[in-house]
């Protein structure tokens, strides 16, 4: 059944107001949608990062569901322990079967980089968990440092655009594909701007038996350098330019869940963001071309996988 806002609006919010996320931050939008998608009780575990910090400043927690944060790199392992405890306590008759779901949420730093091993390990072990990456393409909480999710050309504080080096030199890691290679039941890419798509994917992810992974693009107005009201638009344009295609891999079957009518040039998306400002200075045309070429190739490849 199609997801409708009218139905979602009947549900209690899982994330309370009063958190300290920047005005216009995409992360709480994503979390609200994730929690609205889940009808069962759930436990959430976060990595260290913006989301964890802004939602759990003692004694104020924005979480209305049970929540644990352990360390930067260990959300996948920690949630695997929670899920295992649930399984065994149920088996031993110490708790009731409430159909509880186990959700880990990590930033790109906590997922692509420092938590990569723990994530790979946890999904290889087959835990019945959903791991969600809120990919804002840098370490925002510590002041916008590059991660392996930072796109080529982006200025961050550890890949600064300087007189001789024009921002990050490397292409981003295709984490979603890496995770799909683990052959787990469900893998997807989404963006909260396309809420129906995202919520449908979360619903599928929690329903499958075994591990699921969703990579959610989460524009950060501070680190990306755009006005707060543009968050949704920036998210949408990432999809329209095929910088961030949204798709799913269900039991090994790849499927685009949205195809832009007409692929927009990526420069339209880049030029709205301060982090790419230097790329539009004379002399950097070749970098823009390189970025566009890379996107074209990746889009071709993805379409082949999905055909």
């Amino acid at each position, binding site marked *: 059944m199609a997801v409708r806002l009218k139905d979602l609006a009947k549900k209690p919010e899982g994330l309370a107001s009063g958190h300290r996320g920047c005005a216009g931050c995409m992360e709480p939008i994503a979390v609200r949608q994730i929690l609205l998608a889940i009808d069962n*009780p759930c*436990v959430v*575990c976060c990595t260290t990062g913006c989301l*964890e*910090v802004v939602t*759990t*400043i*003692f*004694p104020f*927690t924005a*979480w*209305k*569901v*049970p*929540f*644990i*944060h*352990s*360390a930067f*790199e*260990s959300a*996948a*392992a*920690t*949630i*695997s*322990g*929670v*899920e*295992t*405890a*649930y*399984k*065994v*306590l149920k*088996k*031993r008759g*110490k*708790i*009731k079967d*409430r159909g*509880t779901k186990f959700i880990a949420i990590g930033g790109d730093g906590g997922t692509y980089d420092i938590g990569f*091993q*723990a994530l*790979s*390990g*946890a999904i*290889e*072990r087959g835990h019945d968990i959903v791991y969600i990456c809120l990919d804002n393409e840098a370490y925002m909480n510590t002041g916008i440092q590059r991660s392996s999710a930072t796109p080529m050309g982006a200025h961050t504080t550890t890949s600064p655009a300087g007189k001789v080096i024009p921002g990050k030199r490397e292409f981003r890691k295709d984490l979603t594909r890496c995770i799909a290679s683990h052959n787990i039941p469900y893998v997807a890419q989404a963006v909260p701007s396309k809420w129906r798509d995202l919520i449908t994917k979360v619903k599928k992810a929690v329903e499958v038996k075994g591990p699921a992974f969703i990579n959610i693009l989460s524009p950060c107005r501070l680190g990306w350098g755009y006005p707060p009201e543009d968050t949704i638009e920036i998210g949408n344009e990432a999809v329209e330019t095929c910088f961030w295609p949204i798709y799913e891999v269900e039991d090994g079957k790849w499927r685009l869940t949205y195809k832009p009518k007409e692929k927009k040039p990526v420069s339209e998306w880049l030029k709205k963001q301060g982090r790419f400002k230097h790329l539009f200075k004379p002399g950097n045309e070749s970098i823009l071309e390189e970025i566009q070429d890379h996107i074209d190739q990746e889009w071709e490849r993805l379409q082949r996988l999905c055909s």
Partner: protein
Amino acid sequence: MGKISAKTGNEAMAEAMRQINPDVVAAYPITPATEIVQIFAGFKSDGLVDTEFIATESEHSALSACIGSAASGARTMTATASQGLVLMQEMLYIASGLRLPIVIAEVNRALSSPINIHCDHSDTMGARDSGWIQIYSENAQEAYDNLIQAVRIAESALLPVMVTIDGFIISHGMERIEIIPDEEVKGFIGEYRPRYTLLDEERSITMGAIDFTDYFFEHKRQQIEAMKEAKEKIIEVSKEFNSRFKRDYGLFECYRLEDARYALVVLGSTGGTVKVVVDELREDGVKAGLLKVRVFRPFPWQEIKDTLAYIPFIAVMDRSDGLSSLGGPVFQEIRSALYDIDSRPKVINYIYGLGGRDTKLHHIKQVFQDLQGIDRTGRIDGLINYLGVRE
């Protein structure tokens, strides 16, 4: 009366884990603790335990999984050694800060570099300030008994506990030990009733929130107090263990110490070697004695002070060096505990057995001779000494 059987230290620890039958064990192999994990995995495969066993991809994840499990109200254990414990280090602090009663069976091994698989205490000494209760065992019997008690201690103090044995010396040495019947172990450890859990149906708790300057100190103060109070809880559990199973454990063991003039302080398996030497020296009329520390965290400094106050010459044996230039950690703490005594004993330090270097009877005799020398001359030639190293 339990069953007498021949077991290595690792087998004894694994046997205790079988009897405890925890809800969750998450672990990763490392010499010399690998066997504990393997034997336990075998128990699981043979249906001898119905624990959920998570074979993680690292020790960091093993302890992270333990944290998730314990936070969900499950009785949770792991085993590790050396580099594994060091890799867990970050999570050690998180486990204790969250007040999760996780138990680690730890096998003492040196730390790289150079890589070395043999015993010293650098690994657990490096974790001495991580907020874990630390219980050192002299032999396989103690390791077995301590591990069973650790479950009760952890759950009453709401602090994690590590029980240690000396790598290879005890972990792989075969001993005759008494195994308590399964039902009696079960009766002793009882059911675990967690105070707070993520799986609570009534309320949604948040664990691992961030504290700014306005709350952090208060939360740490609580933890400090919990560690202080843990002492009484350890004593209580040990008393009950003794009343049920007739093996008496205190915070430390005193061996022929009442009238001693020369005392050694040791942790772990070297206690056994020292006892042999003490007996020999006593035959010769030398008033030698031993204080073997069982509980190093919380550090029972008052009791140690009261016990050692009247012993004029003391050598503290450290199986690790703090690389601080002031000797080993046990030395520093014992010496500090004795500071307030007006006529305080002379205390010297011996670093010994690093990387599994054998410590023989003649080494221990040498230490007693050195103490006797100080007694004769009134002069300390070496405050910090290295026993058994080639000069």
